[in-house]
């Protein structure tokens, strides 16, 4: 491990030592996570799972003195979307800003600190980091057969003068049989901070969880999200992530289909500019017969941005009649942009239909010419083509409010790009 990453690792461990007396819940689990984190350290590009995403820029910050929360810091605006909401500021629930629905059971991790059982922490150092330092989070459960509507889960990072903030929210979402819920997760902020959320999601038989994520963190921020989802028979976990912010960000999904006829969708789009690095990593495990998984991941990259997509479909021996599909497409809009893509299939059952595809290229000259010939100015023509390119992934979002919000965010991104290009 490089000296910088070692220093980064040490600074997080020191932070844990400083905080441990005040942390809620099972200290034994935290201690074990700390040990795992100490031996694994912050992942390096020599770790296969982090081959394309370097955490060097994160490790260069000293989080030893990081604040846990800020009183009275200036807050960014919450994106406009209707509906009940749970608002976290710097990782802590702010009840004064929240309005919780009565269709579901909501508590905060600070009061109900259960870590659940997640995959081995020594192999997931970023999850170990969360387990070690988690202070708060949303604990949501929806009762059998209840359609709980929509909950907006907001993470705000407040402006902090010259100091680094790190927060590690631990969220749990449990849907009982036949339950329904849509979670619209929004992350916005100001300044330089690390947002390191971990989700533990359980979707019971016949339940449906729609999880729409808009990651619009500050450009200097780091966003490392890990989402574990388990889906039972005929259950449906439908996730969409739009990544716009963060200097280094990663959305890592681990979805397990454990009952027959379960379905998972992990769609994503990343729009990156400047020197941003955005990473979508997915692992879908088919552990029961007749399950289906769909992934469509789109990258639009400009300036010196780098997009990463690592997707793995694992089909266990028992998972006959699996239908797995994965598509990764990237548009490179500038000479210095880069895409790294690793779509993996790992298959142990014979009666399956699995495929993946990947395409990389620039905007099609013919299409551009077609639009220009019809009197559409170049910028607008490019915008139309990019929107069309993204539409494949976006159309999977059927929630109206969320869809509008995503459209709006994409418009905003494009306007900023056009303005900086002009």
């Amino acid at each position, binding site marked *: 491990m490089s000296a910088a990453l070692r220093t980064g690792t040490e600074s997080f461990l020191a932070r844990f030592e400083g905080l441990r007396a005040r942390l809620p819940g099972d200290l034994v689990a935290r201690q074990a996570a700390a040990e795992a984190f100490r031996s694994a350290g912050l992942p390096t590009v020599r770790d296969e799972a982090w081959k394309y995403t370097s955490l060097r820029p994160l490790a260069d910050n000293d989080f030893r003195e990081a604040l846990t929360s800020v009183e009275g810091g200036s807050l960014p605006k919450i994106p406009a979307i209707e509906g009940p909401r749970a608002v976290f500021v710097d990782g802590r629930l702010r009840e004064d800003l929240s309005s919780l629905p009565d269709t579901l059971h909501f508590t905060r991790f600070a009061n109900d600190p259960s870590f659940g059982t997640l995959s081995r922490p020594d192999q997931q150092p970023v999850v170990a980091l969360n387990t070690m330092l988690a202070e708060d989070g949303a604990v949501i459960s929806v009762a059998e057969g209840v359609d709980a509507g929509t909950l907006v889960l907001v993470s705000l990072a407040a402006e902090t003068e010259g100091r680094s903030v790190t927060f590690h929210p631990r969220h749990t979402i449990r849907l009982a049989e036949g339950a329904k819920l849509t979670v619209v997760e929004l992350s916005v902020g100001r300044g330089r901070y690390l947002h390191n959320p971990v989700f533990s999601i359980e979707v019971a038989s016949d339940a449906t969880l729609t999880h729409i994520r808009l990651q619009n963190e500050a450009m200097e921020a780091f966003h490392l999200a890990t989402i574990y989802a388990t889906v039972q028979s005929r259950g449906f976990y439908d996730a969409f992530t739009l990544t716009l912010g963060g200097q280094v960000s990663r959305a890592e999904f681990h979805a397990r289909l454990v009952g027959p006829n379960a379905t998972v969708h992990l769609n994503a789009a990343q729009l990156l500019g400047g020197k941003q690095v955005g990473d979508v990593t997915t692992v879908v495990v088919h552990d029961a017969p007749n399950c289906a998984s769909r992934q469509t991941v789109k990258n639009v990259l400009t300036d010196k941005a780098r997009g990463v997509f690592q997707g793995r479909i694992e089909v266990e021996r028992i998972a006959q009649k699996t239908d797995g599909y994965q598509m990764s497409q990237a548009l490179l809009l500038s000479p210095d942009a880069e895409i790294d893509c*690793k779509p993996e299939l790992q*298959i142990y059952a014979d009666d399956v239909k699995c495929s993946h595809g990947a*395409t990389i290229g620039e905007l099609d000259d013919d299409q551009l010419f077609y639009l220009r010939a019809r009197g559409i100015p170049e910028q607008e023509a490019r915008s139309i083509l990019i929107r069309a390119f993204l539409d494949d992934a976006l159309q999977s979002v059927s929630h109206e409010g969320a869809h509008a919000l995503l459209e709006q965010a994409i418009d905003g991104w494009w306007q900023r790009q056009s303005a900086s290009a002009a």
Partner: protein
Amino acid sequence: MAAVAETLDTVQSLTGSGYKWGFETDIEMDVAPKGLNEDTIRMISARKAEPEWLLAWRLKAYAAWLNMVEPDWAKVGYPKIDYQDIHYYAAPKKKPGPKSLDEVDPELLKTYAKLGIPLKEQALLAGVEPAEGDEPARNIAVDAVFDSVSVATTFRKSLYEAGVIFCPISEAVHDHPDLVRQYLGSVVPAGDNYFAALNSAVFTDGSFVFIPKGVRCPMELSTYFRINAKNTGQFERTLIIAEEGASVSYLEGCTAPQRDENQLHAAVVELVALDDATIKYSTVQNWYPGDANGKGGIYNFVTKRAACRGARSKVSWTQVETGSAITWKYPSCILQGEDSVGEFYSVALTNNRQQADTGTKMIHIGKGTRSTIVSKGISAGRSDNTYRGLVRILPKAHGARNFTQCDSLLIGDQCGAHTVPYIESRNATAQVEHEATTSKINDDQLFYCRQRGLSQEDAVGLIVNGFCKDVLKELPMEFAVEAQKLLAISLEGSVG
């Protein structure tokens, strides 16, 4: 029917066991003591009367190897190899210069006969040209590698007249030292990876091919590799250079006798293509895969790489991999020259307990470079078959183009098929496309064949051959026939 197929049939009828090429030959061997150290390397170098620079190069590679760790990223598992428990040198004891058939060890000729080397007559091995009025010999020159030393090279003279050099690399070291020194290790450096470094330190022989400027090699070149003595790792080193405008097609085929202990094979193949040169490299690999329970079999850890240095140069790799207990092999192209072209066509079939982790790397450096990858993986029995490939487009590769297709076919529910492609693009004007599918044999197709009276086994063979057609059609005629047979034989016992 081609000669190859005939000999195949003959051999098939001779041996009762599942592996059709399992036999050993008793020949007096000159064997080095087991173990690897500087003395072994000095001994190999001395036996071959090598110049000082080559010994220094070997020792440097050995020093690099000592500091390396055996790679573990491939999806293969095997007991730890004891590198001190291997003979690093074994050569048939040589009488000076076998100039006619009578002087060639008869045991050796018998081996070739059993092998079914695609030679029209065994006599060709001794360099005897067919007499006037005889059926003309097929135009394939063979450099047969018997364990570590090339025993005979045919067609040498007629090739020499065309200006083509085709000889054992140990001879090239003496006869063409400047060429060897200039190109050896220039594509796969001595310390490139664990197995390449090992090879560089202890390689004993292999083929050397040099096609001078503007020459189109008048015949297909072919080498037969065969691991013979017990416990000798075989460390081949092949170097092919095609100068400006030259072209050559090289065929490589492998069989090995049956035995229980695992054997290590760590070969290195380097290809260099200058401006407008074309190299076509075809392999049919059918080493002993181990028995149905995974006992025995060859470890095939090979580094193959081509440098397309010149503008418009082209390298095409075609491989049919049916043998070996473990295959770890990634024939690659470094596309440096403008508009250079790299191709990779592969069929990898695994059965029983075989493990194959194979694929390619296409590194696009120059403008307008193009690459095509077609990979067909077939897993049966309890085997694991992995495609692992890299397509990397570097910033200066304007207008580069890649198309990749990898398909996997699963036969039975105890095997695994995996696809691990890495795709990296750093140039917006490059176009990269990748598609992969995994499926089982289509029931409708099977039904169609069965209904027309084909047995289950024949039907599967037919469908598998159809599945691989895109690759098999790239093989030279002689090999295509052999390859089709091999696929059917390798699948035996997996259907039912």
